[in-house]
C-alpha cells in the first residue's frame, strides 16, 4: 500500500476547511444560516407535527390507563405535595417585570450537544440571545442562538453557563456552574455558611443576566473539605431540566411610554405658535376636544 493513500491530500484540505468552519461558527459567524433554517421550518414543522401526533396518541393511552387505575384517594398525597410546593413558592419574594412567551421544545437531540434544546420561538416572536428560559417557576437555561422562528437554548448543565445564585436559608450568594460531568455545583460558598441538604437555591439577579428569585433546585450534597476555602455543594435541578417539553421565555415587559414630542400648533396665523405637551397642557378652551381628553394610561399595568 503506497503512502499517502489515494485521496489523502484532498481529505486534509477538506478537514482543514471543516475545522475553519467549526471555529468560525463557534465564534458566532454565519448568521445567514438562520435564514436558511427559517426556510426549512415549514418542512420541519410538518415532520414534528406528525411526530407530535404519535406522541400525543401514546400519551393519551398512558393517561387513560393511569386514570382508570388510580382512584381519588391515591391522588391525595401527590396533590398535597404539590399544594405544599405551591405554598412554598408563594412565599418567595418574586416579581416578574417580564412577559412569558410560551415555547415548545422541537429538538433535544444529542447532536446539538447534551445540554442544548431547540424551541419553536425565534426573533419574530421577540426572542433574543441571553434571555432567560423557565419551566414553570424553575430556571432551566438561557437562549444561546436565535433564528427567525427557532432558538437554541443552553440548559443549566452546559459547562459554559454560569448563574449567580443565593440560598435564602443561609443568606449566602454563590456561582452555579456545571462540572464537565454535568453535575451542578455552587462555587464560592464559605465553610461558615450553614448549608444543609434540601436547601433551595434561587437566582440572585446579581450581574443582571437573569432575574432574581427564580428557583433552580435544591442542595443534594454538601461537604466541608478540610483545608479548602469553599464548600463542595452539589445541586439537584428541576426534573423538567432533563426532559423539557414546554418552556417559557422571559421577554422584557413593554417599555414605558416614550415622552410625547412637543407639537407646534401652526393653525392660528396671528398668534405665535402654541407649544403643547402632556406635562404642561395649555389652558383648555371650550370645544377643544384634545385638551379635555383623559391623559394616556400606562400600558401593561407597569409604570403606574
Amino acid at each position, binding site marked *: 500500500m503506497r503512502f499517502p493513500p489515494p*485521496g489523502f491530500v484532498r481529505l486534509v484540505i477538506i478537514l482543514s476547511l471543516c475545522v475553519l468552519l467549526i471555529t468560525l461558527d463557534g465564534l458566532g459567524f454565519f448568521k445567514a444560516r438562520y435564514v436558511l433554517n427559517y426556510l426549512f421550518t415549514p418542512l420541519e414543522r410538518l415532520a414534528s407535527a406528525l411526530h407530535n401526533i404519535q406522541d400525543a396518541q401514546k400519551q393519551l393511552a398512558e393517561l387513560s390507563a393511569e386514570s382508570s387505575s388510580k382512584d381519588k384517594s391515591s391522588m391525595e398525597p401527590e396533590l398535597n405535595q404539590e399544594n405544599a410546593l405551591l405554598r412554598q413558592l408563594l412565599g418567595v419574594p418574586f416579581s416578574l417585570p417580564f412577559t412569558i412567551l410560551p415555547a415548545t421544545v422541537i429538538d433535544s437531540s444529542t447532536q446539538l450537544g447534551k445540554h442544548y434544546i431547540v424551541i419553536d420561538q425565534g426573533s419574530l416572536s421577540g426572542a433574543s440571545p441571553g434571555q432567560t428560559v423557565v419551566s414553570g417557576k424553575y430556571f432551566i437555561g438561557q437562549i444561546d442562538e436565535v433564528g427567525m422562528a427557532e432558538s437554541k437554548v443552553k440548559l443549566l448543565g452546559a459547562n459554559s453557563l454560569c448563574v449567580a445564585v443565593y440560598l435564602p436559608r443561609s443568606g449566602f450568594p454563590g456561582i452555579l456552574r456545571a462540572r464537565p460531568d454535568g453535575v451542578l455545583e455552587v462555587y464560592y460558598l464559605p465553610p461558615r455558611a450553614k448549608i444543609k441538604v434540601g436547601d433551595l437555591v434561587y437566582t440572585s439577579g446579581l450581574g443582571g443576566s437573569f432575574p432574581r428569585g427564580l428557583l433552580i433546585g435544591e442542595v443534594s450534597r454538601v461537604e466541608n473539605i478540610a483545608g479548602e476555602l469553599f464548600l463542595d455543594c452539589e445541586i439537584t435541578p428541576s426534573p423538567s431540566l432533563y426532559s423539557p417539553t414546554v418552556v417559557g421565555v422571559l421577554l422584557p415587559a413593554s417599555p414605558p411610554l416614550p415622552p410625547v414630542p412637543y407639537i407646534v400648533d401652526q393653525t392660528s396665523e396671528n398668534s405665535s405658535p402654541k407649544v403643547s405637551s402632556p406635562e404642561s397642557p395649555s389652558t383648555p378652551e371650550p370645544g377643544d376636544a384634545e385638551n379635555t381628553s383623559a391623559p394616556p394610561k400606562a400600558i401593561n399595568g407597569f409604570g403606574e
Partner: protein
Amino acid sequence: MIKVYSPSSDRAPAISARAWIVIYILALVIVLAQLTLGRLISIWGVAPSFILAFMICLTFQLGARSVLPVAFVTGFCADLFTYNLLGSSAFALCLVVWLVGLSRNIIYRKNLWLYLAIIASSTLINALVIRLIYWIYLGEEIFSQNMLWKLPLESLLNFLALMLLLPLTKRILKGRLNYGE
C-alpha cells in the same frame, strides 16, 4: 452484491456531469429525509443515519477520492439546516468516507458480516468524532452511559438503511459510470 472497480488500479470511474448532478440532488434529498423522517422512524430515540449509509454506498462504488466533496457538501447541508456546529457533521462524514475507502479491498468478499462490521465501525467513528468536536468546542462530555446501548442499535439501523440504499444507488448510477476498460 455490488460490482466495484479494481482498487489496485487506484483509478476512479469517470463520472459524467449529469451523474454528478444526480448524486448531489440525491444527497440533498437524503439530508431532507434524514431531518424530517429520521425523527418519525426512530426507535427508543435512535434514528438510522441515512446520510452515513448513503455516503458509504457511494464510497463502495466511486471510491473515497470522488466522494469526499459530496460528503463535505452533504455534511455541511445537514449542519446548515440544524443547529449543529457548522462543519462538525462534514468533518466526521469525510473522515468516515476516507476510512471506508481504504477498506474497499475487502468489500470484494461478498460477506454480509463485513458490511455490518464496516457500518458499525463507521457509526462509532462518526459518533466519537462529533462528540470529540463538541468536547473541544463546547466542553461537553465525550462518553455517556446511553452510548453503550444506543451505538449498537444505531449501527443495526444504519445497516438496514445501507441495505436499502445500496440497490438504489446502484440503480441510479448504473450506466453513468465509465471505468475506462
